[in-house]
């Protein structure tokens, strides 16, 4: 393709000005820069920040948000939104302890299937009934958390060593759940970049009626996207439960949908769909995690924490926003 560019564009096709490029770079990689800046601040001003265990803590804590955000990025790519992820995490937490008697793996499978079913319900409402994604998944947000609480009315501690190990053991010093999140990131990246499905997702988000006329299986793709989101959320719920060593359907995943959406958007994926940035989404989640950690470590009161978060979110998105050509 490179050759094509040259012989086609001619002298006029290659007018590259430096300044716009810098802007473009900031727009594309602003979130990386922000993460670096925050790291630098912490290295300078936060005691004990450079300990290996500190990085482990941050990575472990961000894992559920990263996993949920991956699914959210796909959904947002189709111009949708999935508010039900937090409740799906809760449902997964409930299912995993209910079926723990059969061993951790069957329990995990049941939990993930549960998540997929919820995703399918939301996806069906969106794709086949034509309900707007925000309300369809809002109904699930309310109902599924209730369902989780019906199944497991209160926090349940468990002693299953395998599940506990899943949450707390490490391989080569890297926690297992972090490795899982990394693997999922790679898979989603592959799906988005290299598969037909990934292309279809962004095409549908970019222009639904054009996609329909181009013969794309629009409804099926939409359904599948929500199923994947539910599936990933359920997995996140199981991992969070393993780490907590207790199933807490009441508060697990509360408001995580907002964190996930923030991570996706801070990473530069537009809410208007048609574009998905996987790695930047992970960076967005890391940014929000580091920010929260910084504010906690410096013991800011809640009021300040929230105001600072507001400002940083605005600044990060401002840097990565799409500029109008004028």
């Amino acid at each position, binding site marked *: 393709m490179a050759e094509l560019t040259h012989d086609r564009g001619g002298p006029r096709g290659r007018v590259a000005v430096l300044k716009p490029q810098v802007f473009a770079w900031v727009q594309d990689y602003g979130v990386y820069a922000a993460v670096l800046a925050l790291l630098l601040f912490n290295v300078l001003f936060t005691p004990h920040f450079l*300990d290996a265990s*500190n990085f482990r803590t941050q990575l472990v804590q961000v894992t559920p948000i990263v996993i949920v955000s991956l699914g959210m990025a796909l959904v947002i790519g189709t111009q949708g939104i999935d508010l039900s992820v937090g409740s799906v995490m809760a449902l997964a937490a409930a299912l995993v302890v209910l079926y723990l008697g059969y061993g951790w793996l069957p329990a995990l499978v049941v939990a993930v299937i549960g998540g997929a079913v919820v995703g399918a319900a939301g996806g069906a409402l969106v794709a086949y009934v034509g309900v707007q994604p925000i309300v369809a998944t809002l109904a699930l947000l309310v109902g599924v958390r209730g369902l989780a609480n019906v199944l497991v009315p*209160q926090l349940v*501690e468990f002693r299953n060593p395998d599940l506990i190990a899943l949450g707390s053991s490490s391989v080569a010093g890297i926690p297992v759940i972090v490795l899982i999140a990394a693997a999922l990131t790679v898979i989603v990246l592959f799906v988005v970049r290299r598969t037909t499905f990934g292309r279809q997702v962004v095409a549908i988000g970019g222009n639904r009626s054009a996609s329909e006329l181009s013969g794309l299986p629009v409804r099926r793709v939409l359904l599948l996207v929500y199923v994947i989101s539910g599936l990933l959320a359920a997995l996140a719920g199981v991992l969070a439960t393993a780490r*907590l060593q207790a199933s807490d359907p009441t508060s697990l995943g509360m408001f995580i949908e907002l964190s996930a959406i923030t991570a996706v958007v801070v990473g530069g994926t537009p809410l208007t769909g048609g574009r998905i940035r996987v790695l930047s989404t992970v960076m967005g989640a890391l940014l929000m995690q580091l920010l929260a950690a910084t504010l906690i470590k410096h013991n800011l009161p*809640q009021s300040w924490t929230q105001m600072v978060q507001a400002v940083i979110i605005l600044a990060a998105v401002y840097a990565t926003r799409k500029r109008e050509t004028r």
Partner: protein
Amino acid sequence: EEPQSAPAAASSAGQQVVETPSGTAGPTCTLEQFGGTKFDLKTATVGFSQSEKEANPFRIAETKSIKDEAAKLGITDLKVTNAQSQFSKQITDVQQLIAQGVKLLVIAPLNSDGWEPVLQQAAAKKIPIITVDRKINAKACSDYLTFIGSDFYEQGKRAADRMIDALGGKGKVAILLGAPGNNVTTERTNGFKDRVKEKAPEITISFEQTGEFAREKGQQVTEQLIQSNPDINGIYAENDEMALGAVTALKGAGKEPGDIKIVSVDGTRSAVQGIVDGWLHAVIESNPRFGPLAFETAQKFLNGEAIPDKVIISDRDYDTGNAKDSLGEAY
């Protein structure tokens, strides 16, 4: 392996014990003073408005206690609403209970202020209101009947005593705060801080962050905390869930039981077990079993007897000395 869930309280054990009426007799209230009319509790519609989801041991035990006692007394028409932690919803819930013709209201308020519209409506219909576990800021015996519950400020003070005790009067302490804006958070914090200032000026409170009364948040905040403040000596958690989250965090960081002294409030079974295991130092109880006392008070009132304007229950505390034996009584 069997998941171990905390079973609900055995019905007779751990019953609430009243602290005040025998001692300092405050102002009292009679049916006549209140201006109501007598009715039969058994056949009347009784409303109970719960504030939070029955999803933590305290709320579960509380709702269960009210329902069980009502059943025991033969009250057939008990209507229960749940505000799901939304204060506006609780106001509406109670108003709708009134609209359904309840004769007696038992309310577990989510917040102490902001009850004006409910109080007005109830007063117009002369419906007696008993508030449990949290106070309503209004006039007893006219706006509402009476309050039954613990003294949260006192709980904070007692937690401080335990902490001072554990640290020998000096050290660095972190507080895991409850949900911001919540009366319980405020009072448990103030009680703790006031007491520490008064009795152990050498203890510094170097860290206070909200864990929103949830185990996971407690764990996350503690992980950050012990990273950046490895020299912390004690953690005061404003409820058991956050304390248990802190325990998980400490375990994950390779700490041993007792390295960091944890004191918390509530008295759930898991927390008492935590004392037995050596992870928690002490737990101040906050007893949720309001059913018997609430209906007893109501019955007395209807019988024309004078009842106190507030019934403060005496909460016990758990420590290594009594934890093992008291496990059965914890909720």
